[in-house]
């Protein structure tokens, strides 16, 4: 993109904002629909941040939690379960409509009181404590929770409660005064928000074209136009970067990094993603009901060796189900998971393991290095005497009674243990409902304290107890936080921000700049 070079050079010399600054991103996948409310996929997360805003924003430059005004300029708790928010004035949607309390109430209630099945599903696991939003006046709204909520800001900063326009959405299909399922379906192909970039063209699964939105209320977008194109083949994607067809590419495999870094015109950036690749174990499989067997399966796995061999040591191996991004709730002191083959052998002996075969299911390609990790785990199991067998298949087997073990991922949907461990391992959550994890009254009680205590120390103590339960009767072992890389032209300054959820392609002001050379 020589034009871009020329642009930045001229801009720095004479400060004439004349030529357009354009960027092309080669992504391994493009979302098939764009609706922040129903989506929580890794592919979709790339796109929403540029186009939509939340009521409460977050300082993304830090992995410490610092809340900032977003579409709301202030908020205060008027009752233990009622939050009142003053909305920013002069905010315009990309279609020219002004944002008012009605739009905010509509956006929130489409999730809090969801009738559209994809929203219901997303709302249930994280927004279940919210009853409704209501308008006080044109620039004031109140949100009612069912019970006192310790995570107000966190849960108003979610992608799922980004603000969308009411009238526009309702008019997309059917009756223009009523919100119907088809309105939401249509919205996901023609998304409109308040963010610094509007979506000029969206070809599902193929291409997203952003254009700067001049009516944006905050710092204006630094780029005029960004085209994110699907380039599924790794080799083609890297070559496209080299030929200048792309300026930035996503999803570079660890073994390709040195190739790119060796090129004087290119560079890579990367980070351990806020997501765990995990091994799950079916606590209800007749042969695995004895927790000692599962503890042994877990203790036998040398995760540091997996990291060295598969991720060149760039992944992060956790001692517990915890991440730095959790802020105050980050608990590196917990020692829930360890490598101890001797102890594994002892436990197998005590449990009377008779050499039965333990199957480990994996997709061939879904998780980067997933199959290789599975094969290595079989070797590690063999070291302690467990007879393992990898079963490669495409089907999700997490809900199958015959499941013994398989790989899975536990993403951080938002920066709190509730947004990671919590979504997957809550009482009656996905894992329990799929029949491979059990909770009891005691677990539910600890869960309550962890989820709803207003005291951080109390929440931490409860989370520690949950981890003790997981350790004593393990249904899961977090293997590592995979290392995710992007590659780009050397003059581009861009990197994923530490305060963001994984995979976001952030091109807002302050997120990208160009070295003048």
């Amino acid at each position, binding site marked *: 993109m020589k034009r871009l070079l020329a642009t930045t050079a001229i801009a720095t010399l004479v400060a004439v904002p004349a030529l357009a600054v354009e960027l092309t991103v*080669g992504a391994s996948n493009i979302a*098939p*629909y764009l609706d922040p409310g129903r989506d*929580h*996929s890794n592919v979709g997360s790339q796109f929403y941040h540029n186009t939509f805003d939340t009521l409460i924003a977050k300082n993304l430059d830090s992995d410490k939690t610092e809340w900032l005004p977003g579409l709301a300029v202030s908020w205060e708790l008027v009752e233990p379960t009622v939050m009142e928010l003053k909305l920013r004035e002069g905010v315009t949607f990309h279609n020219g409509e002004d944002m008012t309390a009605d739009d905010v109430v509509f956006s929130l209630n489409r999730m809090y009181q969801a009738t559209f*099945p*994809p929203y*219901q*599903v997303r709302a*249930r*696991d994280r927004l279940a404590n919210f009853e409704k939003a209501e308008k006080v006046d044109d620039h004031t709204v109140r949100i009612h929770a069912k019970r006192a909520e310790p995570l107000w800001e966190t849960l108003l900063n979610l992608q799922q409660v980004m603000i969308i326009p009411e009238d526009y959405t309702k008019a997309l299909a059917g009756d223009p005064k009523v919100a119907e399922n088809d309105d939401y*379906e*249509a919205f*996901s*192909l023609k998304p409109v928000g308040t963010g610094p970039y509007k979506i000029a063209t969206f*070809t*599902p*699964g*193929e291409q997203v074209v952003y254009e700067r939105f001049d009516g944006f209320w905050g710092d204006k977008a630094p780029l005029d136009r960004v085209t994110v*194109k*699907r*380039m*599924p*083949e790794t*080799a*083609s*994607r890297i*070559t*496209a970067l*080299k*030929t*200048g*067809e*792309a300026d930035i590419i996503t999803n570079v495999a660890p073994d390709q990094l040195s190739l790119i870094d060796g090129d004087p015109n290119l560079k890579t950036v990367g980070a351990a993603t806020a997501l765990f690749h995990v091994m799950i174990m079916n606590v209800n499989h007749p042969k695995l009901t004895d927790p000692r067997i599962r503890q042994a399966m877990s203790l036998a796995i040398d995760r540091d060796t997996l990291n060295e061999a598969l991720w060149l040591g760039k992944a992060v191996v956790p001692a517990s189900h915890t991440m730095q991004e959790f802020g105050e709730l980050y608990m590196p002191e917990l020692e829930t998971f360890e490598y101890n083959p001797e102890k594994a052998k002892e436990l197998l002996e005590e449990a009377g393991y008779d050499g039965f075969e333990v199957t480990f299911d994996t997709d061939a390609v879904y998780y980067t290095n997933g199959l290789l990790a599975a094969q290595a785990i079989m070797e590690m199991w063999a070291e302690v005497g467990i007879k393992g067998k990898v079963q490669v298949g*495409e*089907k*999700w087997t997490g*809900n199958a009674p015959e499941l013994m073990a398989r790989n*899975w*991922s*536990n993403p951080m949907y938002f920066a709190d243990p509730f947004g990671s461990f919590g*979504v*997957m391992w809550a009482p*009656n*959550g*996905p894992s329990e*409902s*799929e*029949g491979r994890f059990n909770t009891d009254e005691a677990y539910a009680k600890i869960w309550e304290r962890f989820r709803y205590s207003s005291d951080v120390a109390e929440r931490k103590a409860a989370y520690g107890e949950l981890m003790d339960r997981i350790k004593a009767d393990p249904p899961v072992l977090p293997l590592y936080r995979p290392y995710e890389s992007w590659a780009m032209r050397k003059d581009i300054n861009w990197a994923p921000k530490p305060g963001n959820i994984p995979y976001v392609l952030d091109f807002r002001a302050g997120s990208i700049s160009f070295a003048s050379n």
Partner: protein
Amino acid sequence: MLTYLARIVLKMLVTFFAIVTLVFFATRLSGSPIDFVIGEGITQEDRALLTSYYGLDQSTWVQYRAFLASFADGQFGLSFVERRPVAEIVGERIWPSLQLLLSSVALTLALSLPLGILGAVYCKSWVGSAVMVVAFLGYAVPNFVLATFMILVFSYWLNWLPVVGNGSAWHFIMPTITMSGILIAGLTRFTRNAMLDVLGQDYMRTARAKGLSEQTVIFKHGLRNASITILSVIGLQIAGLAAAGSVVVEAIFAWPGIGDLLVRSAIVRDYPVLQFGVIAVSVAVLLINAVVDIAYAYADPRIRLGRA
């Protein structure tokens, strides 16, 4: 000729119905789209909710009837993933695929017919041997290897050709060569063999004895008679290319065509798109076959008149 055409059409219709039915049941054997549309970590209760929203809780028979009915409005149902009419999704991609197919067929014909004839006419000299070597090489190299090799040389090292998309004429070069590689190899060999068969026939000797020029002998008497064999091979190979050849090529070069769409919808089990995509490709194959059948009739009066 009319009866002949009617027979072709009837054959197509029966085959089409068989394909439609087979595709419907085959796609359903491979897993539920819910796992892929929604992703990981949903409760059984939510899974049931979505299964019902997408109409997948209905009996197979009801779904099959709805599937057939969706042909009526020309929309072919809604994609599970994109929630827009399947006809629209596939429609966006037909032209890029067709362009690539046509350019590949053109390149194939332009190279393999002359090469095959050369190979036959000069079968005893080094020219003939060289043609055969090229043909065997083309056959032996898989298309994804050829594609990667070209990308390495012409894009990565030399930076002459673009790698992704279909934005300009330059974008056609590598995908077209990749698509036609095996086809050129195969058709060259078939043309050569067909010509060799014909060149040994008595009527060729007669033609020469009549004092016709060598050019007339080879092209009018030789090629015309060899064309039946060549046509049937071309038909089969182009149909094969339309059905499967584009899948790899489109993925490698990020070509926004049907092959790429098929792969993607197969991965996420987007039944409606997958079904219609397979059907669209099948129709293309049927049409190509019909065209070949008609071309036969043109080339060989015995077929046209039903006296073969």
